[in-house]
């Protein structure tokens, strides 16, 4: 039986900095593997659609613009995405990647949440 077993902790803390992270004022660096927003690299995409098929949240659509010239677009809804990285795992071409920098995804405007990766045909 003891009284005040945490006295040591209290005294140390009283004379040291709080351990709270002062996030918006100070940003600590995100870990390398952080699963932030999805990034698509279209070069190798073969339009197989596996990423969209496996996505548990229905956050991906593969749009085939022109099968011959391998023109695809990837439609991505970050608000539906659960950041599970299944699409990254499923894509055998390694076209998908999750950013560890873009993770502050809150927005006041819904248009932020409907992203179409890749150019339209007209633009070449």
């Amino acid at each position, binding site marked *: 039986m003891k009284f005040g077993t*945490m006295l040591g902790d209290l005294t140390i803390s009283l004379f040291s900095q709080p*351990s709270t992270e002062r996030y918006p004022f100070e940003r600590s660096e995100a870990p390398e593997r952080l699963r932030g927003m999805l990034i698509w690299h279209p070069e190798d995409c073969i339009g197989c659609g596996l990423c969209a098929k496996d996505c548990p949240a229905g956050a991906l659509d593969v749009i085939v613009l022109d099968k011959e010239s391998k023109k695809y677009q990837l439609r991505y809804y970050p608000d539906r995405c659960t950041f599970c990285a299944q699409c990254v795992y499923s894509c055998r071409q390694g076209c998908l990647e999750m950013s560890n920098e873009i993770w502050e995804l809150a927005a006041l405007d819904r248009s932020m949440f409907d992203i179409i990766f890749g150019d339209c045909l007209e633009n070449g």
Partner: protein
Amino acid sequence: MGSTTIKDVLLSLIALLIFPGGLFLLFVGLAYEWIDRKLLARMQNRVGPRWFQPLADTIKLLAKEEVVPDAVDASLFIGLPIVALAGVLTAAIYMPFPGLPPVGSFPGDLIVTVFLLSLVTICLGLAGANTLDRFSLVGATRALTQLFAYEAPFLLALLGPAFVAGSWEISEIIGYTDGRWLLITQPFGFIVAVIGLIGKLEIPPLDAPEAETEIVAGALTEYSGRGLALFRLGKGVALVLGLTLIAAFYLGGVATPLLFLAKTLVLLLVIVGIHALFTRLRIDQTVGLWWRYGTLLVLVQWLGIIIWQGVMI
């Protein structure tokens, strides 16, 4: 002649209503609440609120709509917080604040002060019993139970210094204790007084009457807006008054503002430490602790004083 009287009256009024009593006291209460919260946060390795947080809370609460529930006596519901705050502000009149003229001083004002300080808790209990809310009812029962358990030992602990000073008038006791550290001669009385204050004001670990995880906010569950703000202000002021009383009686007086600050803040630190260190006691444990040890300690103290006085004579 006539003009001087008016001037005196005016000065006294200012002293009572604005500085250092009344309004100023409210702000001191808020400041102490902030220090309390900040210290606690730092002890727990958190950042804690900014300095204006209690003030901002109060302003927000005052500006909010007060919801008066059905099936309560509306006049009581609205009146009780006012009575509580008025009670503690009245108690301030007899306080040994530096700069406050002891206008209302009379023999026996110590007793009156202690009971005025209890008015917050009594009002709290009544406010809880006034509603039909089940958390409030349990909270009110606990608040009143705790009040009765704490009143006697706290008073006895404060009567120790009164006894050696040979007077029950606060200003005379202060006159005696000024420069004399009764903490050394009456250590038990001091301990009981500090714990008594914690219990009276329902500061954790003796906060069973408003144990958040059991009965939400206890007696105050139904209060929102103005009523809640007034109760909180009342508690803040009561805390300052209680600290002042103990510092004045046991820690060698609070003759100058600097001494007042230093001593009450040290006491506050002790109370925050107790808050941070201990687990909340159940109401039966709270009451049991008091009757078993608290009262006993004071009685031992009293016996000591009486024997000592007998020896001296």
